[in-house]
């Protein structure tokens, strides 16, 4: 018996030694634990590496928006209460109130608010703020000054120009996804790709580099280089904002295109928004006061008389008329259906097409369009880019309304009025693009706002389908384009409709437009959209008579104001014209374009531009709040 017991004892020991772990393994794999077991320290870790969102730059490489590293601070009031914070050389610990004051001072918060947060012991993760101030960070991470602060590295989207460029850049939401503008259109490129880091860590959760299993670094988002020029944009936005305030408009928009490349140099739309507060904009605003609408690309309207240039260019190109063809100004002439009136203007019995453009005669251009016919007019309008997207790299571009008479013939009203810009809807960008074709000797180049999308390796990854076609599409013959520009020169000359759009030193080929607004399906009396679209320099004037060719046309500028109330400034030449003048002056200076009318020396007194600058400086001084910088002494004492 004894020997048997001795024989079996080791086996029993072995069974206990091997059996207990086996039972444990079985229970673990069958998930039979009741959840009360204590987890072993986790030495394996996996970390998602978040990519840095790419930046957006202007054509000169100046950053417009960038993700900037910041620190996010949160407050744990319980930890603050329990910790004993002693300043260096002090025996007594600091009181929670003193700590709260230190926190408030470092982050420029209201001390009473921070004190209240310290009292709220129920919430142990209270948001204090985000800061990129290294001095504040040193204070808030100094264990001799504060306690209970939770710091997290984060990135903040910085829009360096504030509201400027709002409709171009757009905004990002809380999930770091683009909500509008380039941020939305190129969200995938800007976001980048997340990385992952897996490996072992020590008991204090520090990664052990030699035990790293996987490290796939995050790929930072691509940087986007735009065609817009920060200085030109500033000129456009400032002049537009001042113009809206001066003339009492409800909204306004402006776009500037480079004639040679079709690139957008500036794009402004008012009302605008603060990109950092895009989500706070109410969603039930009427369209006229909705700041989210990009009125250059996403808003269609009847253009009015600016369309007359397109009609005349089409008819001249088709050799249907010449600039000197004579038309009767009799509105009731037989053969035409309900021609539009000329607002009480009394013309000579007959005028030329040239005069009809210069004086913006609805009757003559209406007759011209009527006689030219819908099919041909439609074909030319399509070639000029109406009724189709321009392909600009911004979200929400509208097509406009241009019905195809081949599918369903235009009614007689549209037939007689499409030529003068009624019965068709366009976007401002479409109109500017059509004028770009006229300025570029008849070749239309689709407008573009993105020049390059550069990934982290420095490669340009812009989708080839989004690249501008430098060859463009020929719309009209070069001689037609020159003839039309010559006609348009008269608009800003004496006797034209836009004398106030004249730019000293430069020739301007432009056209005014005063389009009645439609309310409840009818033209509302007294409510207008005023437009001026011009080419500077005109491209038909020689700077010096000895020159072989005229000075090259450089930019197309379109300015529109939307009036919600009756005003005496409702005409394109009276309101949009002066704004155009300011913008054109600034643009010519920024682009260093030499005047093509150097002999036309402007008055050397302070001109509008100086007044504008003076006003701007005074406004800035008035708007400047009291110096709100950090208290240097206080910071030094806590450093």
């Amino acid at each position, binding site marked *: 018996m004894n020997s048997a017991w001795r024989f079996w004892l080791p086996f029993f020991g072995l069974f206990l030694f091997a059996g207990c772990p086996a039972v444990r393994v079985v229970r673990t794999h069958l998930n039979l634990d009741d959840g009360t077991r204590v987890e072993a320290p986790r030495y394996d870790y996996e970390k998602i590496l978040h990519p840095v969102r790419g930046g957006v730059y202007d054509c000169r490489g100046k950053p417009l928006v960038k993700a900037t590293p910041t620190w996010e601070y949160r407050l744990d009031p319980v930890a603050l209460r329990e910790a004993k914070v002693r300043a260096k050389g002090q025996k007594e610990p600091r009181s929670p109130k003193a700590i709260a004051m230190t926190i408030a001072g470092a982050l420029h918060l209201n001390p009473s608010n921070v004190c209240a947060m310290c009292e709220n012991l129920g919430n142990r993760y209270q948001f204090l703020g985000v800061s990129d101030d*290294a001095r504040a960070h040193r204070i808030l991470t100094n264990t001799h000054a504060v306690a209970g602060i939770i710091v997290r590295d984060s990135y903040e989207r910085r829009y360096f120009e504030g509201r400027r460029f709002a409709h171009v850049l757009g905004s990002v939401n809380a999930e770091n996804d683009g909500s509008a503008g380039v941020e939305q259109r190129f969200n995938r490129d800007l976001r980048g790709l997340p990385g992952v880091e897996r490996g072992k860590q020590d008991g204090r959760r520090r990664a052990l580099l030699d035990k790293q299993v996987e490290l796939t670094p995050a790929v930072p988002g691509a940087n986007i280089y735009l065609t817009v020029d920060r200085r030109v944009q500033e000129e456009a936005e400032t002049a537009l904002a001042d113009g809206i305030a001066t003339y009492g408009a409800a909204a306004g928009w402006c776009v500037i295109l480079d004639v040679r490349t079709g690139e957008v140099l500036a794009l402004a739309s008012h009302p605008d928004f603060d990109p950092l507060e895009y989500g706070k904009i109410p969603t039930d605003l009427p369209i006229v006061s909705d700041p989210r609408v990009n009125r250059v690309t996403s808003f269609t309207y009847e253009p009015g008389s600016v369309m007359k240039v397109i009609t005349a260019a089409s008819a001249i190109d088709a050799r249907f008329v010449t600039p000197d063809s004579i038309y009767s100004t009799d509105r009731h002439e037989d053969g035409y259906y309900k021609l539009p009136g000329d607002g009480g203007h009394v013309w000579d019995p007959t005028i030329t097409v040239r005069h009809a453009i210069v004086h913006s005669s609805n009757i003559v251009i209406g007759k011209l369009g009527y006689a030219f016919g819908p099919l041909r007019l439609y074909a030319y309008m399509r070639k000029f880019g109406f009724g189709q997207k321009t392909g600009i790299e911004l979200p929400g571009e509208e097509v406009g309304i241009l019905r195809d008479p081949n599918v369903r013939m235009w009614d007689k009203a549209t037939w007689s009025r499409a030529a003068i810009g009624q019965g068709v809807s366009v976007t401002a960008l479409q109109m500017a693009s059509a004028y770009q074709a006229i300025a570029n000797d008849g070749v239309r180049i689709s407008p573009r706002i993105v020049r390059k999308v550069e990934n982290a390796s420095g490669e340009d990854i812009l989708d080839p389908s989004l690249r501008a076609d430098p060859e463009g599409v020929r719309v009209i013959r070069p001689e037609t384009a020159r003839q039309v520009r010559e006609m348009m020169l008269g608009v800003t000359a004496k006797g034209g409709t836009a004398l106030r759009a004249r730019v000293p030193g430069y020739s301007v080929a432009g056209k005014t437009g005063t389009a009645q607004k439609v309310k409840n399906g009818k033209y509302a009396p007294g409510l207008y959209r005023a437009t001026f679209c011009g080419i500077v320099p005109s491209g038909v004037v020689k700077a*010096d008579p000895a020159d072989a060719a005229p000075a090259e046309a450089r930019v197309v500028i379109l300015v529109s104001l939307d009036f919600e109330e009756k005003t005496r400034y409702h005409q394109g030449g009276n309101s949009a014209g002066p704004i155009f003048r300011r913008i054109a002056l600034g643009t010519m200076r920024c682009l260093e374009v*030499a*005047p093509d009318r150097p002999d036309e020396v402007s008055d050397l007194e302070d001109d509008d531009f100086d007044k504008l600058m003076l006003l701007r400086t005074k406004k*800035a001084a008035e708007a400047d709040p009291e110096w709100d910088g950090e208290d240097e002494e206080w910071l030094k004492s806590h450093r």
Partner: protein
Amino acid sequence: MRQNRKVSRRRSVIGMHVMHIGAVVVTLGVMVVLNTLAESSCGQLMTSIGQKDRTLTARQAEFERVSARWEATKSTDNLNRALGRRGLEMNYAKAHQIIHVEKNGTLRPGQQSVALARQRFDRLATASVAPSRRPIVR
């Protein structure tokens, strides 16, 4: 003698083996020591690299922060505000006050400033009285 000779040969063989084994052991020992030293050195390097890596990341972040702040400071509104705060009223130069010169040293054609200067020069040249000492540039 013969038997003795045999014994001594066996002893020498054992001695040789002992020496070989000893050499191997010593070599192994040295290798272990060297390996330990190398590992320790690697560990130190690893710590140092990790520290430098963290410093680099922090410096890069600081650079980003400072450059962002600099860009924000240079923004148009801030510059205007700064000018206003100091009571400065600055205007851009007008077209007739700017002379553009090409890279090859020639004047860019069609400049208001040049035209104005020529006009004045012609006026002065054709004037019957001698030109005054007053500067022609306003």
